[in-house]
């Protein structure tokens, strides 16, 4: 079962991704961030 920390942090990060997409910006900066890297392990 996924941890609560992981689930809520993913949600938090994904809102920023949604903002980036909405603004027409590439996701590279976000997906290369330490937090995203941590979540993707």
């Amino acid at each position: 079962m996924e941890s609560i920390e992981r689930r809520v942090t993913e949600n938090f990060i994904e809102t920023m991704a949604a903002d980036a997409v909405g603004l027409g910006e590439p996701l590279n900066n976000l997906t290369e961030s330490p937090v995203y890297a941590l979540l993707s392990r």
Partner: protein
Amino acid sequence: MFILPPSSASISWELPQQIAVARWTKEPEMIMFSHSASFRPDPPELRIRKVRNLGDLVSWNRTCALGFETGAADFFDLFNRPAFLSAKGTSWYVGEYSGKPVATSLLYMSNGVAGIYSVSTLPEFRGRGFGTALTAFAVKEGFSNGCDLASLQTSAVGVPVYFRMGFRFVFDYECWTISPKITVTKK
């Protein structure tokens, strides 16, 4: 901005080298499970509705800028784009008093989590339970769409407000806001 959850604390990044030029804040993470949720009635003078079109979104962003006391009514105007309205899992809610938008909230659903964001109330309308009502509305929408967990990040001042709603504190995020002039690289 780098936002670090607790499990990242033992991981060594190059970020600490830049800490002297960063602004550090804590953001408490609070959650509520659907099986333990209970809500108070909304203030009868408040009408809450979903943002449906670009005009609504423009109004929502203006209300949010004033509610967060950004100092500029157009602070969030760059988000006045139709693309946001079709974002998957995202809904905006506005609270109206006598037809005037006075409070906001945003729901983002992913992986069974109802993430609550952008809860704001115009300064002159605070203390009436409008922020609580906008939060509860978004939470209920998330639960009715299959989420089992509601999540939000707040300030220390907001913790007791959300605690009274039934949220509980789970951990602090560490937020490092770094000058755009500084480049941070991963190891």
